[in-house]
C-alpha cells in the first residue's frame, strides 16, 4: 500500500472522536462562516473543554518530544563535533535518515512497524500511540537539535578548547567547562525555532490515530461547517500563546545567561 493510501485510512479513523463534539444548532454548510456570529463562537466555547484536552495532549507531546530530542540530540551533536570512527559515522547517518524522512512516515513506522508498547507509569499509562508519537517526534527533533548543537559547539573558537587544555583540563573537561557553556548560550535561537516546529508538528500524530489540538479542531468544524473560521482562530490563538510564551521564556533565559552580563557557569 502506498504511503498516501495508508494516510487516508488512518486519517479517516482519527475522525471518530468528532462524534463526541457537541453539534451546533444551525444546519451545516448553509450559512457562511462569518467571524463574530454569536452562535458559532458559542459553539467553540461549548466545545472548549474538548479542544482543551487536545491542547493538553499537544503540550504533553511537545514537552516530552523536546526533552527526548535534547537528551539524544545534544550528545549526538557533540559526537559529530568531537567523536570519530564508527560512532560518529553512525550518528551522522542516523541524523541524515531522520531528517530526510517525512515526519508522517516516521510516526507510522514507530506505531505500525516498530510497534511501541503501552507504558505503565503506575498512576497512569501512556498508550502505545502516544509513546510512538513521542518517540517519532522526539527522535526527529533529536536529529534537528543535534545540528543546532553541532553548529553551536563548532562556533566556539578553537582557542577556547586549547586554553582549557593548556591549564591541564582533559579534553572532556575542557569541552564540559569551557566549550559547552558557551555553545548552549549560542544554541538558544536555534532551539526556539525547533521548539516552535515541534509544537506545530505534534498535529501530525493524527496519522497514528491521536486527536490533539488541531485534529480536534478539524473534527469540530467538520461537524459544524459554519464555524470553520472560529474554530481555526481559536486553536491558532492557543498555538500562538504557547509559542509566544515559550519563546519569550527562552529569550529571558538567553539574556539572563548572556555574556558578559550573565552569570558564570
Amino acid at each position, binding site marked *: 500500500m502506498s504511503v498516501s493510501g495508508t494516510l487516508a485510512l488512518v486519517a479517516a479513523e482519527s475522525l471518530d472522536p468528532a462524534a463526541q463534539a457537541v453539534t451546533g444548532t444551525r444546519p451545516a454548510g448553509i450559512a457562511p462562516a462569518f467571524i463574530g456570529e454569536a452562535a458559532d463562537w458559542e459553539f467553540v466555547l461549548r466545545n472548549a473543554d474538548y479542544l482543551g484536552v487536545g491542547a493538553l495532549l499537544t503540550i504533553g507531546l511537545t514537552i516530552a518530544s523536546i526533552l527526548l530530542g535534547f537528551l539524544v540530540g545534544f550528545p549526538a551533536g557533540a559526537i559529530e563535533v568531537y567523536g570519530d570512527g564508527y560512532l560518529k559515522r553512525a550518528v551522522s547517518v542516523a541524523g541524515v535518515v531522520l531528517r530526510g524522512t517525512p515526519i508522517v512516515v516516521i510516526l507510522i513506522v514507530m506505531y505500525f512497524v516498530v510497534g511501541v508498547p503501552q507504558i505503565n507509569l503506575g498512576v497512569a499509562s501512556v498508550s502505545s500511540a502516544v509513546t510512538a508519537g513521542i518517540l517519532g517526534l522526539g527522535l526527529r527533533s533529536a536529529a534537528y537539535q543535534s545540528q543546532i548543537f553541532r553548529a553551536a559547539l563548532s562556533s566556539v573558537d578553537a582557542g577556547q578548547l586549547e586554553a*582549557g587544555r593548556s*591549564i591541564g583540563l582533559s579534553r572532556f573537561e575542557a569541552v564540559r567547562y569551557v566549550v559547552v557553556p558557551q555553545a548552549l548560550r549560542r544554541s538558544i535561537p536555534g532551539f526556539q525555532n525547533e521548539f516552535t516546529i515541534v509544537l506545530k508538528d505534534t498535529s501530525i500524530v493524527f496519522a497514528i490515530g491521536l486527536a490533539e489540538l488541531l485534529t480536534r479542531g478539524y473534527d469540530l468544524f467538520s461537524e459544524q461547517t459554519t464555524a470553520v473560521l472560529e474554530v481555526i482562530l481559536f486553536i491558532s490563538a492557543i498555538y500562538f500563546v504557547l509559542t509566544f510564551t515559550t519563546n519569550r521564556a527562552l529569550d529571558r533565559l538567553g539574556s539572563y545567561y548572556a555574556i558578559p552580563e550573565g552569570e558564570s557557569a
Partner: protein
Amino acid sequence: MSDGDFLTVSDVSKWYGDEQVLHDVSFEMDRGDVTVLIGPSGSGKSTMLRCVNRLAEAQEGSIRLDGEEVLSPDLDVDDLRREVGMVFQGFNLFAHLTALNNVALGPRRVLGLSEADARERAEDQLDRVGLADQLDSYPAELSGGQQQRVGIARALAMEPKLMLFDEPTSALDPELIGEVLEVMHGLVDEGMTMLVVTHEMSFAREVADEVVFLDEGHVVERGPPDQLFERPEKERTGRFLERIASHD
C-alpha cells in the same frame, strides 16, 4: 650560559604533512632562566613553543623537562600542562567566565581545590597582575592589556614550574604593551623560568639569558642577548635584526 639541566630540547623536528617546519632544533634552559625565541613569522618559533606543552606534537627529537621526557607517548599530557603555564597571543580567555573564574577554573577543576580556596588563589593571582579591582569583569569588558594580564594570572594560578609565552603582546595596541611587559618583568624578578616567543627586542635584550634565532625551522644562531644583538655571527641574524629595528 646554562647547563641545561631543567629544559633540554634536542634535535626536535616537526612536519605538517610533507612540510618540515622544525629542523633539529636544540637549546637548553636552567631553572630560573629566561629564553627568548625570535625569528620571522613562519620561522617555527611558536610551533617550537607549543611542542613543549604538547599543544603541537613533535615527530622527532627529545624534550626533557625536569628529568622527564615530554615527548614520551606514555606521558600524561594533562599532568605536563598542569606544571607548564601558557600565555596565548590571542589571550584565549574563557569568554563566559569572569576574570576571577577564568583564573579559578584550573585550581578548582584540575588541582581539586575547594571553591573558597580556588577563589582565594585566583584573587591573589589577579592582585599579582594588578587586576584586584576587576575580579567580576568578563573578558569582553576588559582592555586587551587587562585580558592578557588575566591570561598570565590564569597560568600562574597553577603554580607552574615553566611559563610559555606565545607572542603575548603581538595582538595588543602599542599603548597596552607596557602593562603586560611590566608583569612579565615582575615574573623575571621573582625567578620564574620563562620561554618567550616575542618581537619585543627590548624585552629580550633586558631580561633574556639566552636568545634563540629561528629561521625556516632552523636554529640559525643563539647566545646571550648582548652578543646576538650587537655582534650576530650569522648574516641572516643581522638582516632580521635590521628589519625589526627599522620597524621599531
